[in-house]
């Protein structure tokens, strides 16, 4: 009963279905390239809650022995490689109007903060931070002085800094009041 025309129609439908069914078999996996780009970074921050450090001389003992104050987790360092931290003052003196105290009577002493988990295993790749790092107490000076020298980089390493004013003669016969100076920490490649 089929005419020639009907046969043609059936063949045509068959071909269309074949094309619809085939392409899906091919792509059962797909790929992307992931690129992680690392740039050299060195960063140092003073704990925002400790941007003003005050040494208060209130008693005879303070003037005789000096006053010190430890600032826990004072500096936060992130560095992708070995680094040096230096410190300097904006002036050779702490100023109170026309009166001054010599800045070199102030000693800054860095130490590895307990915030790092006891100072171990945070230097990266199971290296001890203490083993990688040299710490130098430094008298305040307008010339930058090295206080931290780390052979390996680390992410979020904290240092405590003890600020110590000597007291003694330099602090006698001065007007009472607030003597100030700005201290700047810098980080650079080792």
């Amino acid at each position, binding site marked *: 009963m089929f005419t020639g025309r*009907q046969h043609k129609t059936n063949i045509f439908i068959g071909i269309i279905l074949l094309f619809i069914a085939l392409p899906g078999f091919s792509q*059962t996996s*797909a790929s*992307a390239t*992931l*690129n992680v780009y*690392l740039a050299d970074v060195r960063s140092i921050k003073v704990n925002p809650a400790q941007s003003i450090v005050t040494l208060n001389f209130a008693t005879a003992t303070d003037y005789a022995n000096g006053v010190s104050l430890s600032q826990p987790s004072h500096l936060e360092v992130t560095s992708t490689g070995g680094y040096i931290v230096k410190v300097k003052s904006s002036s050779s003196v702490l100023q109170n109007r026309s009166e001054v105290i010599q800045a070199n009577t102030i000693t800054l002493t860095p130490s590895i903060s307990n915030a790092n988990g006891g100072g171990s295993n945070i230097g990266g*790749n199971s290296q001890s931070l203490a083993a990688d790092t040299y710490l130098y107490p430094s008298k305040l000076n307008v010339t930058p002085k090295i206080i931290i020298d780390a052979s390996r*980089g680390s992410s979020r390493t904290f240092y405590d800094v003890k600020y110590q004013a000597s007291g003694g003669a330099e602090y006698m016969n001065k007007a009472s009041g607030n003597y100030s100076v700005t201290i700047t920490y810098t980080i650079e490649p080792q």
Partner: protein
Amino acid sequence: MKLKVNRIIMIAGSIFCLMQSQKINAQTTANSTLNVVLSDVRSIKVNPSQTNVSLIFANAADYNNGVSSNQVGHLEVTSTGGYAIKVKSSGPTLVNGANAIPVNTITLTPTTGTQAAPSGNVVGISIPGANNVQKASLLSAILNPTAVDFISSPTGATKLYYDVKYQASGGTSYINKAAGTYSTTITYSIEPL
């Protein structure tokens, strides 16, 4: 008179036969069979404009907190039935010459697409109700050279898009490394559930 009647009957019979035979010759319907052939199909594609995904570490916060990038409409999936998608890396590390970062510091997180894909297709357009999408199980995958489970769906869909967030942890594994580009190839595969 009788002859006349016979002739009339004969003529009438002839006309009837003629009509009958014409009815047979004028067949106006014919049947053909339509076969719709369904094959099991599973297909996955990475958006062609997102075949390179970059995570850039440029400042201290990047190294401390990590870096992530969400790729919208990243995967296009068509499957005639339930499916599972797995993901793997080409090796255990991202490589930059002699330097390497472990791939297990990279986490991939799938989410059901919420925006139109770049081709202009509406995400999930052909899914009867977004129910199919919601039934899919989405798992964050820590990158590994062995394929790990990523997405599984008990029902199929056509042209369904998934976003993928690429996240690098930062921290110790990214410190004391040479600056530069560390790469690996990530492969997504689809299989029957």
